[in-house]
Each structure stands twice: as structure tokens, then as C-alpha cells.
């Protein structure tokens, strides 16, 4: 399946781009993270500490063990600092 993957704030800076289309069979967010980490070092750098990351699936906050089935957009970012 094809998934749009978005990155924000320092995650975007470490990956080096704001978004990309990823072809993957990952079952969960965690599987996708592992797959990306094995591809290139910059992903390893961005995903080194998952506790400091948040994930949204189709623009809704979810968990790293959430399934990816039917999901079109995945976003990774640090804890939000609005207000």
C-alpha cells in the first residue's frame, strides 16, 4: 500500500523533507518506523527516541502500536507546543 508520511518540527529537519510517499506492507506504525529506520541513517536519527515522538493517523493522534490498515496519512512529530 501507498502511505503519505509527513514530518514536522525537528523530525522534519532530521529527515530532511516535510513529506514523502512510502510504499509499505507495514501492519502497524511501529512496523513502519522499523522499516524506515532500516532504510537510511537519517530515519534512525529521527526515530531514535520514540518517547519524544507523537504520531497521527489521518490527522488524529494515535499510538505506535496502532494498525495502519486503511490509513492514508501518517504524521510524525514532537510533543506539540501550541498556545
Amino acid at each position, binding site marked *: 500500500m501507498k502511505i503519505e508520511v*509527513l514530518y*514536522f*518540527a*525537528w523530525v*522534519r529537519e532530521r529527515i530532511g523533507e516535510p513529506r514523502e510517499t512510502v510504499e509499505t506492507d507495514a501492519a502497524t506504525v511501529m512496523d513502519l518506523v522499523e522499516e524506515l529506520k532500516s532504510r537510511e541513517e537519517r530515519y534512525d536519527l529521527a526515530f531514535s527516541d520514540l518517547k519524544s515522538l507523537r504520531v*497521527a493517523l489521518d*490527522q*488524529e*493522534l494515535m499510538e505506535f502500536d496502532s494498525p495502519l490498515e486503511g490509513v492514508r496519512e501518517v*504524521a510524525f*512529530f*514532537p*510533543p*506539540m*507546543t*501550541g*498556545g
Partner: protein
Amino acid sequence: MRISVQSEDFELAQVLKGFGKAPNTGATVSFTGLVRDDTGTLDHMEIEHYPGMCEAAITKIAEEAGTRWSLTDCLVIHRYGQLRPGDQIMMVATAARHRVEAFEAAEYLMDYLKSRAPFWKKEVTREGADWVAAKEADEDALKRW
């Protein structure tokens, strides 16, 4: 209810014109957040946002506030982009039958906007640029609701 995620500045008086005019409104509260420069070294702040999710997340937060405090009106404006010290970043306004509801709902909106709306602040000073880290206190603030 009005939600706006925008780069442009806003004029408080103009925004509040016509706000909370329902006849059962007895109180309105508005809060405005500004770019603060604690050390005198801040050149500007960059606010990054997640278009689409921002509006969805804020709408959800505002709807929840509206239900909990029976608000008669509710408004949230949050800016993104490059902002300088003293610039307005965001505002919330609530309207309710009584002041307690209006004040509490405004605080609830603020607490949730801080850590559940997808914005990220980066401070650019003369020494360099750094992402503002989320504070544990902001996460703890949600527990009281």
C-alpha cells in the same frame, strides 16, 4: 463557533464584534497570547503547523468545551509563521450564561491548545535557533479537567 488558523494578525475589537450576542449570554471572556521575550535575545519565533489537523483538533477541543460548559459561543484564532516579540500568537473567547463557565472554558481551551493542537514553536535568537520543548507542567495541566 469560529475556528481560524491563519498567518495574518487579528484585531481584537473587530474579532469580538458580534461575539456572544445570543440573548442567553451573561458573560464573555477573551484571552490573547503574545510572543514573549524573557532574555531580550529573541529575534523571532517560527510557528509550524499541521494544516488540516490543526483545524480538526481545535474544533474537537472547542466542541468539548462547548458541551461541558454549555457555551453560547466560542472562538479560537491561532497564528502560524514568523512572529516577533510582542506579536499576538493566538486568542480564545468564550460566551456563557455565567462568568464561571466562561472563565473555566477559556482555561480549558488554553490548556488543550498548548499540548493537543499540532503547532510547534521554534525560537530564533542571535545565538541560534531552537525548538521549544513541551513542558511537563502543560501535560499535567490537562489532568485537572
